[in-house]
């Protein structure tokens, strides 16, 4: 028997953003802020509350890059895919990190649920290219080695727990 889903976070989001169809993006963002992804249970619940088809909510959620329907790792590491970062060599960094962590463009999260590796459209920190973010903290002027150092230090921190 799966545990009953706790809808209090969803209710809070509805209260905060307004229970109307035009607020759906803000509502989903608020829910994702809490869970770091959008649990499937949320959709039928929102559909009923907003008198909106579930397929339409799914449609909105899958349109926008920032919504995730999959659980993410504890550390979400994003590599900027922008022009400046690209020109200054972001691809080799990404390839190195992916191969060392055993993830790919499709399988983004490590088996131990510790890291999720993503690319992100330009972060606007082009002056610091190539840029990587770890849970939204920006790490500037990356190289493959520097990126791996950051990741190892996180791993060490986790292992120590």
């Amino acid at each position, binding site marked *: 028997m799966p545990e009953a889903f706790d809808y209090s976070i969803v209710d809070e989001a509805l209260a905060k953003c307004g229970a*109307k*169809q*035009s*607020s*759906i*993006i*803000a509502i*989903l*963002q608020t829910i994702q802020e809490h869970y770091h992804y959008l649990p499937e249970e949320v959709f039928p619940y929102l559909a009923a509350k907003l008198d909106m088809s579930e397929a339409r909510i799914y*449609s*909105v959620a899958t*349109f*926008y*890059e*920032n*919504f995730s329907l999959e659980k993410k790792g504890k550390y979400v590491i994003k590599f900027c*895919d*922008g*022009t*400046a970062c*690209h*020109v200054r060599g972001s691809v*080799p960094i990404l*390839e*190195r990190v992916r*191969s*060392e962590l055993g993830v790919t463009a499709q399988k983004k999260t490590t088996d131990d649920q510790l890291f999720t590796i993503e690319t*992100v*459209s*330009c*972060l*606007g*920190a*082009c*002056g*610091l*290219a190539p*840029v990587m973010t770890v849970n*939204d903290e*920006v*790490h*500037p002027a990356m190289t*493959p080695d520097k990126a791996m150092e950051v990741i190892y230090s996180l791993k060490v921190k986790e292992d120590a727990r």
Partner: protein
Amino acid sequence: MSAAIKTKAIKSRKDLQNLREAMTKAYTSQTSKIIVCGGTGCVAGGSLKIYENLKAQMENNGLNVEVSLEKEPHDNSIGLKKSGCHGFCEMGPLVRIEPQGWLYTKVKVDDCNEIVEKTIKKGECVDRLAYRIGDEIYRKQEEIPFYKQQIRVVLEHCGKIDADSINEYIAIGGYEAFEKALFDMQPDDIVSEISLSMLRGRGGGGFPTGKKWEQVRRAKGERKYIVCNGDEGDPGAFMDRSIMEGDPHRMLEGMMIAGVAVGAQEGYIYVRAEYPLAVRRLMNAIAQAEELGLLGDDIMGSGFSFRIYIAKGAGAFVCGEGSALTASIEGKRGFPRVKPPRTTENGLFDSPTVLNNVETFATVSQIISKGAKWYLSIGTPTSPGTKAFALTGNITNTGLIEVPMGTTLRKIIFDIGGGMRGDGEFKAVQIGGPSGACLTKDHLDLPLDFDTLKKIGAMIGSGGLVVMDSHTCMVEVARFFMHFTQNESCGKCVPCREGTKRMLEILERIVEGNGNEGDIELLEELSDTISNTALCGLGKSAPNPVVSTISNFREEYETHVYEKKCPAGQCQKLKKIYIDPLTCKGCSACSRKCPVGAISGKIKEPFSIDLTKCIRCGSCIATCKFNAIKEV
């Protein structure tokens, strides 16, 4: 202890004037100021830690630090502020010292002690933190070539004022233009002043702002909306982010003036979620304006009511397109819709809507205060004013700049940008991001303005300038942009959804050495179809990078297709990496470093690379101490 100036809600014009007077006094009395850059770039470099450290050290030293303006008197106190982006991101984190106007670059937490001891206590410049070119030292910010050549109108306050303080904005004349528009001008006067100024939309197309406002003013509708497009999605552009982060009130003021002019009651700012700092600063600015009574019902007793809301984007480049943006605010997929009707008649929530971008709104207040004539005195006759550009790529000084319209690329790249970084030669500059075109050395002396660029098939777009040197492969650049557009295509219309996919497919095979005869022509044919038949502006402009690179660098394409070579040496699949057996010592360092296990061999004998496994990442080349690994 100093007493706080009471800030109470503004109920009348007089209240605002009184507050301004008090704040101006407080601001000018605070003679010494330390301004730490709080823009995204410098924050990433650790500027917030520098700010905290400076604050702690100053307090420990018994210095009179003031972080807010609301206290007086300010005599003998030292203002410590977090500003928005100074623009010179390359040199960040930046700290500006006033009244001297010094700019400290690449500041580290360890430098704080010296700043406090030398600069704050003794008023001396820490020369080692000043900007240098060779042996020449530039202490003052305004003397640095990067800044000296710029004219800052929109970015005037960025990096100079506390971006989180409405009082500081008011102290330097903020909301004066709004006051004027609200009490001294008729809505028609506002629209005609904007029309006279010939202000053109800074978001890309350069549509006359006054004409847009006029259309909305005339449109019938019970509700009208002001929407600010802060969905700056072009890779390599961050002008709007810097304005939102550095001078949020200026943008709000522009929206409020637009509200008065067209008779709107509500405004929305659509900001990318990738700009969390901008969202925070804007939310704070709106809250402050509401608290003061500059936003809300019956503002200053004028009868005009206006509110501003923030809609956070959720990651879709296409939402920079007007109708997709309004769809997104309405909680829908960001699909552009067919026009007519235009946004000015039928925009947000099916109501007449003024949709302008951040930079445009940020320009409005000055046109209202200083008049259209002043604005027309800057820039070119048909494109007056200034334009902010984000300068990135293989250039010495990356960062945010603002120059008069009509400035040449040469001046921007070589004078302000300091020329090329590294040993490469200037090859091209991509202007306008994925919707834009690449310009070459033939275009270096063209004046940058809306009409000149249009004539050569390019556009200013939002203002990203990505400089590329001779090591950059133009086919790869085209592939990169097509990958971006393809990934960001909303999927609604066939030409963009299917066409960009096929263009990317062809470009990918060309850079991988699998190009076929006829591929270049097929790219041209698809470009023609897409640019003429796609539904929205973004789709129509999607082939631009391909079209312009083919027309300027056709031979580079041909070399890829027919000779399977990349003249710039950038296309990795066309590279071959080999180990020179005569130089290799067999130390195995490279094979241990190789992420894909492509290198093998016996210790003390020459190693070799399995090219079928090799991903050409180059980490072996960087590792080899004997320079035995070569690339061709």
